[in-house]
């Protein structure tokens, strides 16, 4: 419009393009963060309604989850399974599938790791860990891949089937851990035989955080590259947008569905293996700790972007790490974290309706001068 642009026209266009791109990208960041804040605010109002101070609550969460080196270590140790559990939701979600049974893959992965340790106890440590991870990945991958296969081959709704299979998986775990795979020495809490010391996953040097965190972060990065930078990921995104169009283009939709669900399940299975080898030391009922369900919320908050899963998982791990202290100090029941998660989950889903409603995020607004 103005005349003085003549000299700087090149940089002006570049700047406009940058603004357009920024506006387009900002929407996908501002809306979820706003929804997260709104969910936390609603939970704060809920606490206020009960006569508790939300400021004390969030201050305590910060202190116990992120305030000190010790609390960071606690938070990061809990992040590992959450990263992998969230991938089990996010990867199929890019194909338009809502898989919510990651808990089943975690549980079976843990049992498979425990079983591998029982049948091949003489292997050296590193081989044992690789073997456990492979067994766990196969168990989880087959389990969730089956939900994907049922979806593709029989049209069975994957949301319902995967959650039903999670209940079945927990029953199988209870059966195996209390029956055929039970270590006779585990009296009060039926478990598989404890892992040899050399089979246990140790800490990252310098931190009191086990290597599972690194595995989870690498899995997220690999998943991001797979989705955003490979032809497989591109095909999956097309199929997620419009299955018909993908089929017309001749994309192998069935193989994509089964492959992505199986990969997600394999990650969740490895989460179970990490829980066994780094935390519990044997497979037992503690495997069904609800990581799979928290993973659903993380994936939705991260908008199924594997890289965004990393900070979101850390945040929710911090909430879980602080829950014990917060509950004791403020005299709240242990379901408090679940209520918090519920409010945040509803808020993030409601925010879906806001996309495209703000002029600020429309590239056209910035392209015109």
């Amino acid at each position, binding site marked *: 419009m103005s005349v003085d642009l003549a000299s700087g026209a090149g940089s002006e266009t570049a700047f406009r393009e940058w603004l357009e791109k920024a506006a387009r990208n900002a929407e996908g960041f501002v809306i979820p963060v706003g929804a997260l804040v709104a969910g936390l605010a609603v939970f704060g109002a809920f606490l206020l309604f009960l006569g508790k101070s939300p400021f004390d609550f969030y201050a305590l969460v910060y202190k116990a989850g992120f305030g000190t080196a010790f609390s960071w270590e606690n938070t990061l140790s809990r992040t590992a399974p959450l990263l992998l559990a969230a991938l089990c939701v996010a990867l199929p979600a890019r194909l338009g599938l809502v898989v919510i049974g990651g808990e089943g893959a975690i549980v079976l992965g843990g049992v498979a790791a425990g079983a591998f340790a029982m049948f091949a106890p003489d292997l050296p440590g590193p081989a044992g860990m690789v073997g456990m991870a492979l067994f766990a990945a196969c168990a989880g991958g087959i389990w969730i891949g089956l939900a994907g296969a049922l979806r593709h081959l029989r049209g069975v709704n994957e*949301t319902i089937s995967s959650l039903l299979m999670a209940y079945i998986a927990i029953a199988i775990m209870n059966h195996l851990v209390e029956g055929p795979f039970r270590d006779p020495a585990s009296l009060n809490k039926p478990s598989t035989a404890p892992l040899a010391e050399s089979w246990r996953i140790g800490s990252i040097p310098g931190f009191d955080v086990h290597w599972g965190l690194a595995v989870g972060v690498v899995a997220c990065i690999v998943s991001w590259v797979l989705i955003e930078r490979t032809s497989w990921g591109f095909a999956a995104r097309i199929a997620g947008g419009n299955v018909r169009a993908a089929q017309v283009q001749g994309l192998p939709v069935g193989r994509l569905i089964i492959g992505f669900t199986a990969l997600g399940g394999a990650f969740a299975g490895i989460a179970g293996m990490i829980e066994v080898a780094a935390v519990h030391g044997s497979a037992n009922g503690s495997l069904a700790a609800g990581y799979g369900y928290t993973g659903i919320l993380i994936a939705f908050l991260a908008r199924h972007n594997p890289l965004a899963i990393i900070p979101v998982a850390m945040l929710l791990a911090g909430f879980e790490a602080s829950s014990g202290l917060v509950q004791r100090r403020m005299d709240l029941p242990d*379901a408090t974290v679940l*209520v918090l998660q*519920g409010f945040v989950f509803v808020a993030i889903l409601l925010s*879906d309706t806001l996309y495209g409603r703000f002029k600020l995020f429309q590239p056209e607004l910035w392209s015109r001068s």
Partner: protein
Amino acid sequence: MNETDIGLWGVPLAIIGGAIRVSTPFLLVSVGECLTERSGRINLGLEGTLVFGAMSGYAVAYQTGSPWLGVIAAAIAGAVFGFAHGWMCKLSRVNDIAIGISLMILGMGLAFFFGKPYIQPVAPDLPSIPFGWWSDLPQVQAALRINVLFLLAIVVAILMGRMFRSTRIGLMVRVVGDSTDAARALGFHPDRVRLFSTAVGGALAGVGGAYLSLYYPGSWNEGISSGQGLMAVALVIFARWNPVSCIWAALLFGGAGALGPALQSIGVTQGYYLFYAAPYVLTLGVLIATSSTSRAMAGAPGALSITK
């Protein structure tokens, strides 16, 4: 001693009695979900509604001393959850399946949060009618002691079947469920019809929860429901969106759920956990058998997202 009198006959008898007892929450939830799905919405959050209904019903029954007030409270709580679901799904681009999952988590969270003080106290039970008075066998009497809510659920299912077939309201719900555009053209308000269908569905699920905590198993704890609400959703597909078929489907699922305890009562302890998984396996098997990729499911409402 009575156990030995009839020997292995105790197993089928326990399964029949158990089927009636266990099936009631299935029936209530699935009949409610039937209405919701016939209007073109799916509410996967009924698991949370069921648990919250169980808690609120138990709490109110304990505080007032009247189990029926508990049932009413559970119905109101369930209707509120259904209303919330229906209202949120009205917004554009909000996914009804995902909203259901989030309300499942929120409902369970709120139920455990407020239900903590009610785990210990004992609330009054709902009354049941002894239909087994003609028999001398205590097992038969136990099997045929039928709760009022079961009979109520059957009446609701039959009335709803009639409603869909031959009333104006039923026709309106069916039109809305089959085609949003056609419903609009006829002057109906699809969102409003779905809102009320979801609210009524939630209320019935809440009553199902009250049955769990006030009759069978008859106490409130955090493990009171393990997927019954979700299985009921699958059961509606099996029943082909027909409320009367829901009765038979619920009895079948109830029988599967009663298999574990029935076998345990005659001393079968091997594979205890696997028998407890029977209802889930049955649900999955039924889903696999009745779903298809190539043709639309017979009787499926056209606007339902789950069958597309």
